[in-house]
């Protein structure tokens, strides 16, 4: 039964995922392509590309699309595939959510204790490093273009990067506006 399998597989993916969306992609690939053969590796690559170019958490995007495709592949009609898509997405969420409920309750109760204050005081510093690391790792050819291929793209990317940074840090422009402007810039410039 494809729906039960989707529920099981995506619940598993949700609870074993620690590294955020990108780490989840490899988990999904392993289950969906290698183990269950719901789609080929080419189809999966397409899904990753689509997940990255649509808004929202990448893990949810990928689960939605995978759920849809897997049900279609089993020969079900479109409405069943839509159900499969919603099911797969919600399956990713529910187990971590239950865990989060208990963690949040615990933290709210002990938020004034010395141990929790000490631990979170240090962890706030770590989060700064963690965000910096995420940004550093994204400074790649995929996001900025390859200077050996096109100097123009690379320079434009750098300008967009600095302007976005200044816009959000110094001028406090809302991120939504910055994203829209940069999309428009890409459309006009390239």
């Amino acid at each position, binding site marked *: 039964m494809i729906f039960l399998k989707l529920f099981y597989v995506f619940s598993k993916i949700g609870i074993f995922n620690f590294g955020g969306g990108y780490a989840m992609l490899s988990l999904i690939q392993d289950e969906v392509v290698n183990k269950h053969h719901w789609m080929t590796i080419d189809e999966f690559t397409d899904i990753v590309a689509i997940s990255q170019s649509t808004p929202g*958490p990448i893990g949810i995007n990928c689960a939605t699309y995978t759920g*849809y495709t897997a049900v279609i592949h089993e020969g079900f009609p479109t409405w069943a595939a839509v159900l499969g898509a919603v099911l797969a997405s919600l399956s990713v969420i529910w187990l*971590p959510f239950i865990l989060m409920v208990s963690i949040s309750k615990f933290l709210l109760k002990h938020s004034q204790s010395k141990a929790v204050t000490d631990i979170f005081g240090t962890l706030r510093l770590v989060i700064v490093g963690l965000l*910096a690391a995420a940004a550093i790792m994204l400074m790649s050819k995929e*996001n900025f273009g390859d200077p050996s291929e096109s100097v123009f793209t690379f320079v434009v990317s750098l300008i967009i990067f600095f302007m976005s940074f200044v816009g959000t840090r110094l001028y406090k422009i809302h991120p*939504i506006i910055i994203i829209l402007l940069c999309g428009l810039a*890409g459309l006009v410039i390239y």
Partner: protein
Amino acid sequence: MSTYTDIFLTFAKIGSFTLGGGFAMVQMMEKEVVDKKQWLSHEEFMDTLVVAQSTPGLFAIDMASHIGLKLKGVKGGIVGALGTALPSIVAILLIALFFQTFKGNVYVEKIFMGVRPCVVALILAPCFGMASKAKLSKTNWWIPVVTALLIAAFGVSPIWCILAAGVGGFLWGQWNK
């Protein structure tokens, strides 16, 4: 102050405009939840990041559930999580149903060439504001630097950094009683 509708719409808005995954969402979430709605202080927001990063599940969804839980209990958490997830589900379903050619579209690709470097800047930007909120000082500046190095240069999982820092912070607190 905060109603379920308010929580849902705020997170749906954040979910609708996040390209590039959970970390890209941080800047927007801070703006909406801390600056605009004032549901949390900056410090509480950073604690949310810590909790979301150190628990399983998707970063953005974890953040939304944690904030929702803080505001309105379990129902608030559900509303926050669904608000974040719903725009994605709808967008992907529309693409799956109608726009099979979306991926190869030349205009979409152009837009994304502009958006990608911007997303990197949006991820980097909150670090600086947070550094002061985290009480960065002459004695502890190495903690974020070492963390960033371990993760970006040596491929260490963030989970280990969080675990080590949590244990370290606890022991340091005991030592300095």
